[in-house]
């Protein structure tokens, strides 16, 4: 884990003091809401349907147990006993009081956390692979690079007022577990002839105009990566459309000038930026990298095997536990998607349980995933049964990773002031319709994603099945999309046709899955079958 140095801590502490004074002035009437709103947003504080909402940054989704316990403490002390883990690998609290917000930020700062750059037209929290440092297929640990980018982008004076918000993901494996190509910039670390570098993708995103990022640089050496990123941002900052919020993202710039012209300009800028010497000295990179050194794995664990005699445990093992690169260890995925529950929500007590498990069995590490689940990246195989038993007791042992009930859902109209429709009740109904675990496993990997409006926080374009909530003359209506993916086989879903009411869309999904079971070939996931047979058979099944 990265640990703050005195500079990190002092800028976060100073920010808390500054915000405390801004809140005091707002409450005293010295500044108006129009003046205050951009200031509170810079500290992650939104005004939502029922109250203020605080979004706390979890850098590249990585936490230790001390930080996780603080998240539970905030939920218990300042909110209503729960938090919502988001598709940006962050956490949101829904019931925050303005007059307590500075105290929350002060408490978070004591565990090296904050809410900076979780809103506004700046570089947002960096996303990464939740299996970083544990996956067998990574060429390097992406976290030191994500941390470096965090430091580079924090309060970067040129990039504090970009044309629009800006999201960066860093991965280091062929398998994309972070929806990398649906970010403004996606970085995939790779090695060429033994040299570490990156393939850089630019111009991806979801929202109103979903686009898949273009490969802009096949290979930039790690030594040049920060300069190259600076050049990518500079070209965007110069030419991005500030005149039209709907055209302000970098994806639109790439669409308008084309990837070749964008690449040409970036290369030109890169030549100038490189001379500035912003790439970190080797010693600084080594300092950061050392903080992500592998934990002290026990070589004696190599012979461990899990006792599969309990059938429920065996199912959970098969569904939620993934191979670790270290013999004798495993990656545990904790599903926050119980049938009938609220995707991504966890109570303060559950958050504490996960913190305890990380401390006791997981080298003190936790990760938040963009699919709104939690990962314990390093658990000894001999300890899996104990971890599972504790998760069962806490209501956290749903064995549904990547199945149809492992639904991504944004807060939707139950909480979000931008929403058109409620996402959560729909997720609950779908979960209940497909509640039978054997049926879910028979359907296999099926990523279902729901957004309550076109902003696509629920990644509906990237769902094998996606759902978008729309407002049809004041009533909730849902469009169905098929064929999207946020993984290495990235694709954008297509709308099936006319929308449905809440029950109608659940029925339509069942017709889609029935059709899949009817026409699938051996080994095909739902999305593979869709790609082979196309939309027509599904459309016929849905609309008759």
């Amino acid at each position, binding site marked *: 884990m990265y640990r703050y140095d005195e500079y990190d801590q002092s800028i976060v502490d100073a920010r808390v003091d500054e915000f405390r004074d801004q809140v005091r002035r*707002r*409450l005293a*009437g010295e500044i108006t*809401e129009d003046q205050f709103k951009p200031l509170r947003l810079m500290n992650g504080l939104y*005004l939502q*349907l*029922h*109250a*203020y909402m605080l979004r706390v940054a979890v850098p590249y989704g990585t936490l230790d147990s001390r930080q996780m316990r603080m998240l539970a403490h905030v939920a218990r002390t300042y909110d*209503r006993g729960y938090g919502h883990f988001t598709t940006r690998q962050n956490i949101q609290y*829904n*019931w*925050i*009081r*303005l*007059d307590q917000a500075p105290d929350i930020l002060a408490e978070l700062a004591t565990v090296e956390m904050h809410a900076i750059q979780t809103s506004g037209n700046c570089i947002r929290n960096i996303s990464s692979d939740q299996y970083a440092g544990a996956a067998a297929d990574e060429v390097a640990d992406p976290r030191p690079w994500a941390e470096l980018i965090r430091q580079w982008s924090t309060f970067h004076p040129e990039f504090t007022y970009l044309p629009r918000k800006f999201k960066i993901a860093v991965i280091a494996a062929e398998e994309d577990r972070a929806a990398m190509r649906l970010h403004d910039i996606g970085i995939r670390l790779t090695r060429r002839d033994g040299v570490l570098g990156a393939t850089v993708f630019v111009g991806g995103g979801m929202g109103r105009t979903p686009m898949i990022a273009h490969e802009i640089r096949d290979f930039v050496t790690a030594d040049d990566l920060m300069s190259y990123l600076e050049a990518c941002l500079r070209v965007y900052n110069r030419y991005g459309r500030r005149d039209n919020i709907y055209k302000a993202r970098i994806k639109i710039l790439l669409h308008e000038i084309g990837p070749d012209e964008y690449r040409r300009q970036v290369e030109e800028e890169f030549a100038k930026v490189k001379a500035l010497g912003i790439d970190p000295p080797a010693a600084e990179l080594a300092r950061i990298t050392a903080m992500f050194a592998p934990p002290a794995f026990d070589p004696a664990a190599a012979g461990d095997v899990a006792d599969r005699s309990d059938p429920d445990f065996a199912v959970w093992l098969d569904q939620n536990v993934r191979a670790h690169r270290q013999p004798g260890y495993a990656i545990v995925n904790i599903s926050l998607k119980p049938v009938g529950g*609220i995707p991504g929500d966890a109570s303060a007590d559950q958050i504490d349980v996960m913190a305890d498990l990380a401390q006791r069995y997981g080298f003190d590490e936790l990760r938040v995933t963009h699919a709104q689940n939690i990962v314990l990246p390093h658990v000894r195989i001999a300890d899996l049964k104990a971890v599972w038993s504790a998760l069962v007791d806490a209501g956290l042992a749903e064995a549904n990773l990547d199945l149809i009930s492992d639904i991504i859902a944004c807060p939707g*109209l*139950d*909480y979000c*002031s931008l*929403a058109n429709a*409620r996402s*959560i*009740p729909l997720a*609950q109904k779908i979960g209940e319709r497909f509640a039978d675990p054997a049926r879910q496993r028979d359907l296999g990997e099926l990523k279902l994603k729901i957004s309550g409006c076109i902003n696509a926080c629920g990644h509906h374009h990237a769902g094998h099945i996606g759902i978008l909530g729309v407002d049809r003359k*004041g*009533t*909730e209506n849902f469009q169905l999309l098929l064929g999207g993916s946020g993984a290495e086989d990235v694709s954008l879903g297509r709308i099936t046709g006319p929308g449905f009411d809440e029950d109608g869309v659940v029925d339509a999904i069942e017709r889609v899955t029935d059709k899949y079971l009817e026409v699938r070939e051996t080994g095909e996931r739902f999305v593979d079958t869709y790609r082979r047979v196309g939309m027509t058979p599904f459309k016929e099944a849905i609309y008759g």
Partner: protein
Amino acid sequence: MRLITGNDLATGDVVWWTGTDWSRHVEQAADAGERAEAIAREEEAARRVNVPYVIAATATADGPRPAHIKDRIRALGPTVRPDLTLKPADPAAGSWVI
């Protein structure tokens, strides 16, 4: 009828204009009529409410019912957490929203 709603500045609570003051309960909301926008401006300037806006509603036997589902959800609370709504003891309260 025309209601004024907004949030309490310090707590963020959803509030409704009662004709003389602000209440958390939509049942107590009053028809602000043509003066709604002016009242909203005055009250915001006095910091008795934050980000007020005017909505349409219908008068019913149970009190005012906001025309749009978003404001009905604001009035009650999240439909997926009945325990956190203003009527936690009434499991049927959510049907008022829909």
